[in-house]
């Protein structure tokens, strides 16, 4: 717009360089070197990603066949496919999101709208959320084992008079442990996106005689949804790749069947990578399978993310009145 309305006299001369040439050159020099440095840092990141992806795609591509995707592992995992691990991963992530979103979003709504910001309880909750985010994932795994399996699971078994059904590593406990791990991410991103909904939107709703819950339901949540999805995307990306939390809580080394109930154990891609890389009797024989599994894990995470990103883009467009 300005380019057409202004007379085209070429780039405007830098007034600084005209008046104080020496000083200006020095500024330019440090500016150029800083640009080069930050450019190099950015390039390094691109290179690292390119090398990692290139290596995986190069070595894994030929392994990924229909038989590999749909088959079961055979001959001590040196042959066959990884279908149980794909199935288990998808199930795990879906269950995790189902458990995570209501809790995370609920907690964020409470923190943002209902909590008295100066009360000790609210401060304690915020402190806990921020500290939870810093806990190593293996600690979550141990917590899941101790709390969900040995306490909650066993109590359920005792109450129902069952043998060991719930009180053992299982899909449901692994999903809940992963949900717990990702809870801070979802709470923080949701609260942040609720905060970015302009105050005047909230006031407009309340001034029209909407109750606080109606305001949350019909004004704040719809506008915060893209931000909530961002939290879910981050959680999915992390959830599909984390191995430590599910190590003790449900992931299995090898299963000849697919999980049918939440109390079954399951195979998982990340854990399968770990198994192929370290637990195999013949590492050389499993190496192609290892590359293939990593490639599938990356593609799966990418696919899950892409879906969420597309949904988010559509929601944003609708909010901006372009939908």
């Amino acid at each position, binding site marked *: 717009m300005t380019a057409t309305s202004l007379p085209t006299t070429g780039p405007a001369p830098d007034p600084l360089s005209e008046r104080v040439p020496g000083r200006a050159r020095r500024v330019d020099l440090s500016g150029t070197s800083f640009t080069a440095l930050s450019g190099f840092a950015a390039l390094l990141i691109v290179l690292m990603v390119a090398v990692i992806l290139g290596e995986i795609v190069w070595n894994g591509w030929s392994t990924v066949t229909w038989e590999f995707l749909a088959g079961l592992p055979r001959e001590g995992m040196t042959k066959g496919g990884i279908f149980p691990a794909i199935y288990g991963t998808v199930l795990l992530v879906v269950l995790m999101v189902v458990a995570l979103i209501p809790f995370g979003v609920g907690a964020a709504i409470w923190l943002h709208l209902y909590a*008295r*910001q*100066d009360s000790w309880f609210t401060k304690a909750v915020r402190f806990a959320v921020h500290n939870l985010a810093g806990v190593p994932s293996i600690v979550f795994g141990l917590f899941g084992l101790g709390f969900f399996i040995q306490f909650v699971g066993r109590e359920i078994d005792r109450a129902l008079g069952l043998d060991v059904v719930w009180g053992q590593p299982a899909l449901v406990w692994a999903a809940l442990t992963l949900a717990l791990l990702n809870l801070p991410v979802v709470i923080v991103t949701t609260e942040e996106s609720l905060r970015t909904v*302009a105050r*005047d*939107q*909230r*006031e*407009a*709703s*309340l*001034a*029209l*005689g*909407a*109750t606080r819950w*109606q305001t949350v339901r*019909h*004004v704040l949540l*719809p*506008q915060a949804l893209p931000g909530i999805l961002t939290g879910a995307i981050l959680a999915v990306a992390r959830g599909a790749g984390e191995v430590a939390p599910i190590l003790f809580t449900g992931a299995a080394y090898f299963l000849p069947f697919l999980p049918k109930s939440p109390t079954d154990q399951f195979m998982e891609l990340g854990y399968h990578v770990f198994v192929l890389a370290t637990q195999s009797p013949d590492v050389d024989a499993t190496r192609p399978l290892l590359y293939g599994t990593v490639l599938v894990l990356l593609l799966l995470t990418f696919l899950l993310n892409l879906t969420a990103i597309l949904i988010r883009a559509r929601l944003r467009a*609708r*909010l*901006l*009145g*372009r*939908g």
Partner: protein
Amino acid sequence: MADATLHTSDARPALVSRPHVPEREAAPATHAEQPAATRLAAREYHLYYGTHHALKNISLEIPSGSVTAIIGPSGCGKSTLLRSFNRMNDLIPGVRVMGGLVVSGQDVFGAATDVVELRRRVGMVFQRPNPFPKSVFENVAFGLRMLGVNDRAALAPRVEQSLRRAALWDEVRDRLDNSALQLSGGQQQRLCIARCLAVEPEVILMDEPASALDPTATGRIEELILDLKGRYTIVVVTHNMQQAARISDRTAFLLQGELVEYDDTRRVFTSPREKLTEDYITGRFG
């Protein structure tokens, strides 16, 4: 400097005294039915933001169906007073009030008062147009939907009526399902007025409704306010003295939280009782 312009107020009651006590005898319910009855009233009303005494001993009566302008320099408490009548200040932590406010004979702070119901009767239009990122139709229908009206056939006539009253119908009748964000700023502000009219309020509070708009759009909002007068009681906070003179029947001048003068607009602008009012409207400060 600030204290020099203050009235020496001897009526500064202790904080412990009668919070939220209405003066019921001062505004009996029968008033609401008389044509020139008092629609809004403040009785020795004080408001504190924490320790800051933002409104000091405000008493005024606003007649039904009139347009009242509240003028005064920035930070004098105009918006705070306006937002007291629908209790929007409840959203701000650390706000305390004393004295009484009455809307149609009902004590605003009474224990029996339902804030949600009060806000339906006392609508509000904000400084910046703030339509929801929904369709034109859904913006106007919002308040009704919150009341549980969800049938489009029942909503449509109410939406049309509200848009007509807000002088917007002819401009948006063919794009009711388009996003409200596609409208111009002035149209958005009239949409906000229509949205507020849809829930049939008795009072409309307007907080500098035209300050974010260009002169043409401002003119349309002013015309609209004059159209709506009579059917609704309107209170407008404004920075614009000419606007106050053009549209209002009565004008209240606030300075540093005190009501300096409240009278017929003509009188305030031609022969104000107070020297401070004269200084302000002639532009000697503010």
